[in-house]
Structures are given as structure tokens and as C-alpha cells.
């Protein structure tokens, strides 16, 4: 039982990372109907920006303040990167077929991965510890301070995102655009701006996930975004793409089941489990766990 609880804690903390990345996928898919393959790479860039920022701060004592600074810096940098990707690569092909968009996304993803190998170097880097480390034992379960940070920060960000989308004018416009791009343009919403906001927010969340993973698993490399990105996308589809609570639920499910498979079966199956769950869910409930059914119009 203790082992199970321990795995559950590990799973939830990994799942929170997936959930943060999945939010970006779901938001972009909601407005553009695009699988933004480059999103996983934005997450990787987020981790690297965090790495370089924390090296700048290295003279200081590890503290929550410097961790916060690093995270905010990385989020801003990636928000800009997200806007740049959308402006340069996706906007010119937005009116083309969905397939063209998808291939453009694959191209952007490959570009960022290879550029990162040039700029950051292909070898893994070790993330310096940002915040003071502590272990807590609760009912026989070991909770590291990093795990607690990951869970608390990601939950906080998700709540903030939800409030932003539900309570602000921009959030309302975002919901309108994801409901119907053309109709909201007709109603006078600046759709280009809203799409840019979507990319900025999604990329900032991915950057936060990058810094958080750096704190938890301190090894980062230029190709780390591929698998995390794919699994986060799977999480978004699992929860129902376009649905924000769905992305969170999907992320937690994928993270927990992955940790359980590694813990109880074999670590070689860790990459297969996410896809296995996805396939089963899509066959039974194609719109995902919390997704809306979309009627096909002829």
C-alpha cells in the first residue's frame, strides 16, 4: 500500500508536468485545429532558458525567489517564441489544408530540435538546484520538496489559466474563437491577436513545465521535448481535445499510469502505455473523456 501511494505521488507530479504541456496543445488545437508538434520543443527551450538563467543566479543561495525569477523569465521568453512560431510559420499557411498545417508543424519541430542542438550543444546538461531541498515523510510516503513545488505550481498555473479564460474579456474572446473562428471574426474579435495570445499562454505554460522538470529530473537535452510533447498531446486527446479540464485530467492519468507501469511491470513499456490508453479510449469514446461530441456537417 505504501509503495502504491508512493507511486501515486510520483505519478501525480509527473502527470502535472504532462498536464501543463497538454494545456498548450489543447488551446492551440481549440482555435486552429492544429496538432502543434513544435509545442514539445518549446517546452525543451523553456527548460534551457531556465538552465541559463539559473546559471546567472548561481552566486546566490538557492531560494524560492530565485526559482520564481527563473520560471517567470523562462515563461516570458517562451511566450515570445510561441508568438514568433505562429507569426512566421503557421499564419502563412493557416488557410491551407489541415495537412499542410500539420506538416509545417513537423518542420518547425525539426527546426527547433536541430537549432537547439547547435545552440545549446547536443550533450545533456545538468540543471542546477534552484530551491532548497527537503524531504517530508507522510505516512511512510516520501515527498520531496521538488515534487511538492511541481504539484503546487502547476495546480496554481492551471487555476490562473482557468480564471483568465472564464473571467477576462480576452478569455471570453478566446472561448469564442475556439467555438468558431469565422463567426468571432464577424463579431469584431481580432482573431489574429487571440490566436497569438493562445500561443503565448500555451508556450508560457510549457516553459513553466520545462523549469519544473529541470528541478525534478535535473538532466535536460535538446531532444527531451519529443517524447514529453507526444505524451502530453496524447493526454490532451485523452481528456478531450479543446477541453481545458480534460487536458489536466488526461495529463494526470497518463503520468500516473506511466509511473505505475514502470513500477509494477517494466520500464521498457513506459512509452507504450500512453499510446495504449489513447487507442482504447479513442475507440470507445472518440471525443475523449471530457470532450464535446462534434457533429459532422455535410
Amino acid at each position: 500500500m505504501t509503495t502504491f501511494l508512493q507511486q501515486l505521488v510520483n505519478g501525480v507530479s509527473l502527470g502535472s508536468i504532462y498536464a501543463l504541456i497538454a494545456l498548450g496543445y489543447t488551446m492551440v488545437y481549440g482555435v486552429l485545429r492544429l496538432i502543434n508538434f513544435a509545442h514539445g520543443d518549446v517546452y525543451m527551450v523553456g527548460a534551457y532558458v531556465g538552465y541559463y538563467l539559473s546559471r546567472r543566479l548561481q552566486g546566490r543561495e538557492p531560494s524560492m525567489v530565485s526559482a520564481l525569477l527563473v520560471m517567470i523569465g523562462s515563461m516570458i521568453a517562451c511566450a515570445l517564441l510561441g508568438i514568433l512560431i505562429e507569426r512566421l510559420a503557421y499564419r502563412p499557411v493557416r488557410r491551407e489544408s489541415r495537412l499542410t498545417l500539420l506538416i509545417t508543424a513537423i518542420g518547425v519541430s525539426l527546426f527547433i530540435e536541430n537549432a537547439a542542438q547547435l545552440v545549446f550543444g547536443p550533450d545533456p546538461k545538468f540543471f542546477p538546484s534552484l530551491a532548497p531541498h527537503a524531504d517530508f515523510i507522510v505516512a511512510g510516503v516520501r515527498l520531496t520538496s521538488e515534487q511538492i513545488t511541481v504539484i503546487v505550481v502547476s495546480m496554481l498555473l492551471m487555476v490562473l489559466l482557468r480564471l483568465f479564460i472564464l473571467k477576462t474579456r480576452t478569455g471570453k474572446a478566446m472561448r469564442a474563437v475556439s467555438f468558431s473562428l469565422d463567426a468571432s471574426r464577424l463579431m469584431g474579435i481580432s482573431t489574429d491577436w487571440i490566436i497569438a495570445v493562445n500561443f503565448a499562454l500555451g508556450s508560457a505554460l510549457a516553459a513553466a513545465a520545462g523549469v519544473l522538470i529541470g528541478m525534478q529530473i535535473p538532466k535536460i537535452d535538446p531532444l527531451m521535448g519529443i517524447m514529453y510533447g507526444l505524451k502530453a498531446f496524447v493526454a490532451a486527446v485523452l481528456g478531450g481535445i479543446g477541453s481545458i479540464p480534460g487536458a489536466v485530467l488526461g495529463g494526470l492519468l497518463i503520468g500516473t499510469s506511466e509511473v505505475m507501469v514502470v513500477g509494477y511491470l517494466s520500464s521498457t513499456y513506459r512509452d507504450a502505455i500512453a499510446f495504449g490508453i489513447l487507442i482504447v479510449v479513442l475507440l470507445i469514446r472518440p471525443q475523449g473523456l471530457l470532450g464535446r461530441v462534434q457533429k459532422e456537417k455535410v
Partner: protein
Amino acid sequence: MKGVLAAVGLLVGLLVVNGLLTGTLVPGVSISPYFLQVLCLAGINITLAVSLNLINGFTGQFSIGHAGFMAIGAYASAFFTVTFGDSVRKAFGLLPGFAGDSIVLLIGLAIGALLASIAGFIVGVPSLRLRGDYLAIVTLGFGEMIRVFILNIDAVGGARGFAGIPKLANFFWIYGFAALAILIVYRIVHSSFGRTLIAIREDEIAAEAMGVHTTRAKVIAFVVSAAMAGVAGGLFAHYLMYVNTNSFTFLKSFEIIIMIVIGGLGSISGSVLGAVLYITLTEGLREFAQYRMLMFSLLLVVLMIVRPQGILGHKEFVTFLTRRRRSIGEAPGTAGNA
């Protein structure tokens, strides 16, 4: 009769070219082993691209799991030739030589193709009911799962890779099968079944309303495509003599997609052109080492922005040069598919 003559002519031609390239026909005349290898890998890529185009280009179903079927073909055929190769030769009373090798290779490839097509069926039946992006992500998932399962089979080396595969494939076999793949896809596309597939691509709902059993047609196309990918995988394994699951990640599937997209989805000659261009560019840019993939990915994005339908679009090479309007499978006034 004309077809048989053409086939015999092609085979003899390939044998002659094979002899010339490897230096067995005219002593002293050959090309560098590096160039020969690039040429052979290009041939395997042609088979892969043409087969994927059947499902992605002509049927309009976006599949990103082709590398998985290639892996099945590679591992199954390699496992067969390594384990049973000698007993097959003995059964036919043949010494290790061209005849014996050919039979072993052909049986191996047939097994690879069979298993890949079975996998294609298992993957296709449930997933082809899904549409668009969902299909893409599910095929990607299946492709990765196939890879992970092979990784866990110790009999074929697991994570160490599968070494010691006899070198049975050569230029002759690779281009022979590439020609066969082109022929099969050409005949399918120009049959009434091919028109069914194109109808599905253009408008799935309309096709269904016209009485097309869309899932069945899609599954058949998918199975045929998977079988050809299996053959390509088998050739790949018997040419390089070593396979590792790392060669069959979804990046390999992306590569094949890039090839058919560059050439033009729904164009057979486009796939050939795309496969050749891809390998020429990746090998040609090799001296720029680390900038290679960077330039390549940039090229892909620029191509999508400037010419999203690929170089040839839906057209075949000949029609592309002569008539610039419409060709097989393209209804007047339509462009691209959703």
C-alpha cells in the same frame, strides 16, 4: 505479352546495371561503395514513399505509423533468414549462391510482407474509423507500440539490435521491388478501386452516400501499403545486415511523409522524386554536418508556405510537363484535400 516483355526487359536491365555498379560485370567498372549504398537506400525509400502515398496521398488518410510496418517486415524477414536460411537452402538442394540466396530472400520478404499486412489489418480496422488528426495520432501511437514490443523480444536482440543478418539484398532486388511497388500502386490507382479511394479522399461523406464501403476500402489500401512497407523493411535489413529499433522511430515515419509531401501527395512520380530528392539533399548537405537537418526542416516549412501541394501536386511527372491543367484523380476546380 507486351507486359511480360517489359518486365523481362526491366529485370535484365536491372541485372546489367547491378553488375556494372558492383563491378562484377565488367572488371574495373564500378562506383564507390558509398555512392552504391546511397543509391540502394534511395531505392528502399522509393518503395516506402510510393506505398505510403497510396494511403496518405490517394486515399487521403493521414497515417504516421509507416515505420512500424517497416520494422515488422525488417525483423520478421531477418529472423527467418537467420534462423531458417540454411535449412531452406538444404531443402531446395542449393548451395549458398545466387539461386539459394534469392529463394531465401524472397521467402523472407514474403513473410515480412505477410506479417506487416496482418499488423496493418489489426491497426487499420479500429483506427481507420477515426478521421484526420485522430487517425494521425493513433497510427503514430501504434507505430511506436510496435517498436516498443519488438524492443522487448529478446530473440531478435532487444535493445542491442539484431546483428548477423546475411547480405542478401542488393541493387537488383531493391530496384526490382521499387519497380514492383510503383507498378502495383499505379495499377490500383487506375482501377475502379483506385477511383473509390480517390473518391474517399475528395469527400468521404459523399463517397459513402454513393454506396462506397469507406472503411473496407480504406482498410484494403492500408493493408496493401503496410505489406509494401514490410518488404521495404526486409530489404533494408538484408542490405545493411543490422537492424535496431532506433531506425524505426516515428522520425522515420516523418521522413517518409516529408518525401511524399515534397514530391506531391497523390502523385506516384512525385513520391519517387521526393524520395530521391530527400536522400540527395540529406547526403548532399552532409558536408554541412550539423546544419544539414536545420536547412532541411527550414526548406520543408518554406515549401509548405510557398507550394503546399508539393512539387508535382496531384499530377504525374509527364502530365506535369505537358498539360498543366488536370490529371488523374483531380476533379476540375478542386485543389488539395481536407
